[in-house]
């Protein structure tokens, strides 16, 4: 095997790999959206201290946080068809993409549930009382007073979850999804140029993460626009 590192090959490979970037984004966007919805639903019982439900959700979150995403992928990949078989639905021919989105949704939901819960708890109770005293009802007070303050606290954590979720999508290929890494694997099989391909993939991930971080920084400033400037932070 020729052992020279081929820089030109990286440039040649990048366009091919980038064609599969939409698949990565598809996984990311769906899992974040569904994850947020489920995350909110999971946070509510914990905030309202609903017995039984609260404990179940705590165990669920602990399990998701305590196991590698790779194991979760395999559990969903083998577990969901087995559960659906009970109600006589055959999904053995289902696209692996759905399993990936389900896994990342479940994983993100646990992360978001904790983020939302913590963020809402940081908003002082007096805010809610003040809102009531000026005649707002419960939903109004939450949407207009508590939520905007909570999202400010939650946003950096949401951004971090999105970025680590993006990095986690690199494992989707392990159950046979043709995303960027999956395409990279097939290219390795045909060109035997593993290092160049992994360098190209790393560059793509790195650039996306850097761009996302810039965008999130900008947004963070927007959410903090009403905060008094502190003088003595550093």
């Amino acid at each position: 095997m020729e052992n020279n590192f081929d820089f030109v090959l990286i440039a040649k490979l990048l366009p091919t790999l980038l064609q599969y970037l939409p698949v990565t984004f598809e996984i990311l966007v769906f899992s974040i959206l569904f994850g947020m919805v489920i995350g909110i639903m999971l946070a509510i019982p914990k905030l309202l201290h609903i017995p039984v439900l609260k404990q179940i959700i705590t165990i669920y979150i602990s399990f998701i946080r305590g196991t590698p995403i790779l194991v979760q992928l395999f559990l969903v990949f083998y577990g969901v068809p087995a559960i659906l078989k009970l109600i006589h639905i055959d999904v053995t021919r289902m696209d692996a993409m759905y399993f990936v989105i389900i896994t990342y949704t479940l994983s993100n939901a646990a992360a978001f549930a904790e983020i939302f819960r913590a963020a809402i708890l940081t908003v002082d109770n007096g805010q809610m009382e003040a809102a009531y005293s000026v005649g707002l009802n419960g939903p109004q007070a939450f949407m207009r007073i508590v939520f905007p303050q909570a999202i400010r606290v939650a946003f950096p954590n949401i951004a971090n979850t999105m970025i680590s979720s993006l990095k986690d999508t690199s494992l989707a290929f392990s159950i046979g999804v043709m995303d960027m890494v999956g395409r990279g694997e097939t290219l390795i099989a045909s060109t035997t140029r593993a290092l160049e391909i992994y360098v190209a993939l790393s560059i793509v991930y790195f650039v996306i993460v850097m761009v996302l971080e810039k965008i999130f920084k900008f947004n963070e400033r927007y959410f903090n626009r009403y905060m008094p400037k502190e003088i003595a932070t550093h």
Partner: protein
Amino acid sequence: MTIDIAFVLEALREISKVIPLTLFMTFTPVFLGIVIGIIVAFVRMKQIKFVTPLLNLYVSFFRGTPIIMHIMLVYFGLPLIVDGVANTFHLAIQSSSIPILFFVILALTFSAGAYASEIIRSGILSVPKGQLEAAYAIGLTFTQAMRRYILPQAFGKSIPNFTNVFIGFLHATSLAFFLSIKELTGVANIVASVNLKFLEAFIAVGIIYWSISIMTEWISHLIEKRVTAYSKSGL
């Protein structure tokens, strides 16, 4: 669907044999990573020309790419470097004689170094500047002040973050499965394919990871209590 509970137990017994290897693969990179992290954090705070930008790139690259990429880059990249050096200096080292485990641990170490450096940096920044000034005022040098006042406080505040990194890297060792290392996930896969019971084997390995993670959190909570016993902060 019938989950074979007996097989889950058997898989648990089979898979738990490699817990020591997995713990070794977690502890070594995290420990070495903390050492790298301390060095990197201090150099980055010093603003040295060329070195600081380079380290900034190191940290942001490793934090900005998936860990599986680090493992693959080291696995495919290091042999080229080793063979290249061996050829030019006519050394009798061959990359093929390096065990795969070494590549994984090295990759995880680089990765852990980047994450640890950020934690240490934020830990040091979280200690009020007045502490350092107070140490100077009573005649301590920078090193003394760091060692006796700043670092102990910084570490106390960083314990939850280090716990997350430890658990994160425990989970990251599951990626070594792609290089067919027989750690928890690798063995689970073998047990699963031999008996054709995938769900049961992955349930078993999930339980093992979960237990180790919970125990880690529990231990870290105890350590945190002890370390921060003397720091009464807040109201």
